[in-house]
C-alpha cells in the first residue's frame, strides 16, 4: 500500500460494521457491513431514506444501540482506539466530551424538569472540571454563541419556554460545550421550518469550523448535504452504495439509486417543469431483502447478474466508490427507458 502523508488524517474509521436486531424470524441486519471514515474537521453527509440504517449507524458509533439490537461485528476506531471494545469508564469520556450528538427531536432530547442552566452546566462540570461559577459563565457564553437572545436571563428557563428552533440551539450549545472532535447531527433540523433550519445549519457549520470539529450530517435532505458537506455517503437498505465528494456525487453519480434520488427531487430553480422521474416500487423490508444487489428490484439498469452477485463498494475513480455492476454505464443523462 502506498503511504501518502499529504492526505488528511482520519478522525473516525468505521470498519465492516454490522448491527442487527433480533426478531422472531432471526437476526435482521439493519446496518450491513458498513465502512467509512471522517477526517479531522471535515463535514461528511450520510444520506438515505427511512429504514436505510443511517441513524442506527450513528447510534452504533456511540454504542447507543437499544435492545434487542446489538453490534455484531466491526470496529469503530476513534483516534486509534476501538470504541466498540472500550471499557465503560473510557466510553463515558468519549461520549459527550469527544463525540457529541444531536437528534431530530429537540422536544424529547432536553430534560423538561431541569433548567437550561442545569443541563448546560452538567457537561462542563463533569468533563471539563469547571467550578459552578465558571460553568455558568461559560454556559451563558455558549448560549450567546448559538444565538439565543438575552442568554443571561434565558439560561434559567425551562425547555418548554423555548421554541423548537431555540431548543435545537440549546442542544447544539450542550453538544459543543466541551469542544468535541466530532459532532453527529442526526436529522437535527428536519423538524424545523425552513427559515429556522437555514439559521441553525449556518450557525452549526460556522461553529464547527471555528473549533475544528468534524461534522457527520445524517439527513434525507440532499439540499442540506449539497450546501454543507465535503463528502457524501449514500446508504440504501443497510449498506453504503456510493461515496464521493459532493461535487462528484451530485454531478456524476454512478449508482442507479443515487441517480434516482437526485431525479426524484423537484427543484424550484429549474426552467421547465417536467413530469417527475420516480424510483418505482418500495424500499425493501430489511428482513426480506432481494438476493444479490438489494436495489435491483427498483433499478432501471438491472441486468441478469444483479440477482446473483452482490456488488461491493469499489473504487470507480479517485475519491469515488460505487457498488454497482453497471457503474460504467450509469449516469444522469443516460437513462434507459423502462
Amino acid at each position, binding site marked *: 500500500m502506498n503511504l501518502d502523508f499529504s492526505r488528511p488524517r482520519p478522525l473516525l474509521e468505521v470498519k465492516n460494521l454490522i448491527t442487527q436486531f433480533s426478531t422472531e424470524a432471526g437476526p435482521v441486519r439493519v446496518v450491513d457491513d458498513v465502512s467509512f471514515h471522517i477526517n479531522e474537521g471535515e463535514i461528511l453527509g450520510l444520506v438515505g*431514506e427511512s429504514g436505510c440504517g443511517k441513524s442506527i449507524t450513528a447510534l452504533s458509533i456511540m454504542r447507543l444501540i437499544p435492545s434487542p439490537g446489538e453490534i455484531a461485528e466491526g470496529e469503530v476506531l476513534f483516534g486509534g482506539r476501538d470504541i466498540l471494545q472500550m471499557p465503560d469508564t473510557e466510553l463515558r469520556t468519549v461520549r459527550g466530551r469527544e463525540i457529541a450528538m444531536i437528534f431530530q427531536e429537540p422536544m424529547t432530547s432536553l430534560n423538561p424538569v431541569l433548567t437550561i442552566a442545569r443541563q448546560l452546566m452538567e457537561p462542563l462540570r463533569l468533563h471539563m472540571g469547571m467550578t459552578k461559577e465558571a460553568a455558568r459563565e461559560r454556559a451563558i457564553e455558549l448560549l450567546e454563541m448559538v444565538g439565543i437572545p438575552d442568554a443571561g436571563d434565558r439560561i434559567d428557563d425551562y425547555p418548554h419556554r423555548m421554541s423548537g428552533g431555540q431548543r435545537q440551539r440549546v442542544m447544539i450549545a450542550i453538544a459543543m460545550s466541551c469542544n468535541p472532535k466530532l459532532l453527529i447531527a442526526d436529522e437535527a433540523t428536519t423538524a424545523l421550518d425552513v*427559515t429556522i433550519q437555514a439559521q441553525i445549519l449556518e450557525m452549526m457549520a460556522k461553529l464547527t469550523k471555528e473549533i475544528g470539529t468534524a461534522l457527520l450530517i445524517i439527513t434525507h435532505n440532499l*439540499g442540506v448535504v*449539497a450546501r454543507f458537506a465535503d463528502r457524501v455517503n449514500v446508504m440504501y437498505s443497510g449498506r453504503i452504495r456510493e461515496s464521493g465528494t459532493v461535487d462528484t456525487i*451530485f454531478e456524476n453519480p454512478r449508482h442507479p439509486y443515487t441517480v434516482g434520488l437526485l431525479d*426524484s427531487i423537484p*427543484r*424550484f430553480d429549474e426552467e421547465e417543469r417536467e*413530469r417527475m422521474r420516480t424510483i418505482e416500487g*418500495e424500499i425493501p423490508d430489511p428482513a426480506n431483502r432481494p438476493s444479490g444487489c438489494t436495489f435491483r428490484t427498483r433499478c432501471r439498469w438491472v441486468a441478469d447478474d444483479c440477482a446473483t452477485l452482490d456488488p461491493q463498494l469499489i473504487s470507480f475513480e479517485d475519491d469515488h466508490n460505487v457498488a454497482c455492476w453497471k457503474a460504467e454505464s450509469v449516469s444522469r443523462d443516460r437513462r434507459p427507458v423502462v
Partner: protein
Amino acid sequence: MQLGNPGSPSAPEGKPLLEARDVKVHFPIMKGIVRTRPVGYVKAVDGVNLSIMPGETLGLVGESGSGKTTFGRAILRLIEATSGQVIFDGENIVELGEKEMRRRRRHMGMVFQDPFGSLNPRMKVGSTIGEPLVIHKLHESKEDYHQQVGDLLDIVGLSRNMADRYPHEFSGGQRQRVGVARALAAKPKFLVLDEPVSALDVSIQAQLINLLEDLQREFDLTYLFIAHDLSVVRHISHRVAVMYLGRLVEIATYRDLYTNPKHPYTQALLSAIPLPDPKLERTRDRIVLKGDIPSPRNPPPGCVFNTRCPMATKECTEIVPELELVALDHQAACINI
C-alpha cells in the same frame, strides 16, 4: 390515460370554483375553571381573500403557525370560520345548515398529511375507501359498491384485492394512496391536499405527485395544495400563495413567484431552501432571517413580518399592508415594494 405536460397550463380562466372572502378564524384563549372566559384570541387566519379556478392547482405555502392548515379546513367547514364568506360553485357555504352542508361536502374532499394517523387501523381499507359511498348513498347495490371500491383502488395504483387488508399492512406511500382513493370516492370537484407528500420518502413522494397530476387531468379536479416544501409546490401548482402568521403576503403564478418574488418574506423563504447542487450552493446569495416566527397569540402590530424583515421601516409597525397588484397576476402585501 393522457399524461400531458405538467409544465404547460396557464391558470385556467372563467368563474372561480371557490372563493374565500375575508376569511378569519380566531380561536379564543380561555382562562378560568368554573367561569371560563376568553382572555385573548389566536388569530390563526386573519382575513384571507383568494379564489381558485376550476381545474387549477393553487399552492398554499407557509411555515408552522402560518394558518395554512386552518385555512384549508375552514373552507371545507371542518373548522368554522369566525367571519368571512366561502363561495363554492356560486353559493356561500358558510351560511348553509348542517344537512345542506353535508350534501355539498360530497363535492369537496380532503387528503391529510399523516398516512398513519388518518386511517382507522381497525377498518379494512376497502371500508375506509367506500365509506363516503355509503354516507352519500352513491351505490346502487352491494355489487356496485364493491365494483366502485375496486375501481378506486385501481385508479390510485393499488390492486383491487387490497380492499380486504388493514392499514398496518400498507407502506406509507400506499396508505397515502388509500387516502386519495377515499377522497375521490364521492367524485368531488375540489380537493384540499394538506401536506399530502411531506411524510413520505423522496422516491415515494415523486410517485404520489405524478399520481395527483394524472388524477387532476383525468377527473377535472381542482386542488388546494398545502405544503411547506416550496419546490414540491412549484412543481404541481398553477399559482402559489404564501402565508405568514395568518395572512396572505404574496400570490402569483408559479413562474413569477419563484423567479420574481416581491415580498421580502417570500424572498427569504426561497433563499433558505438548500438546493441539491453543491456548486450553486457555494455561490448563492442567501437571506438569513433573524429571530423566530412570532406566536400567533401575540402577532406584532402593523405588518406581521416586520420583526424579522430585513427591509422593515418604522411605518411597517404601524400600517397593516393589504395585497396589492405588483405585476400582472401577481399580488403582494408590502408597503416597501
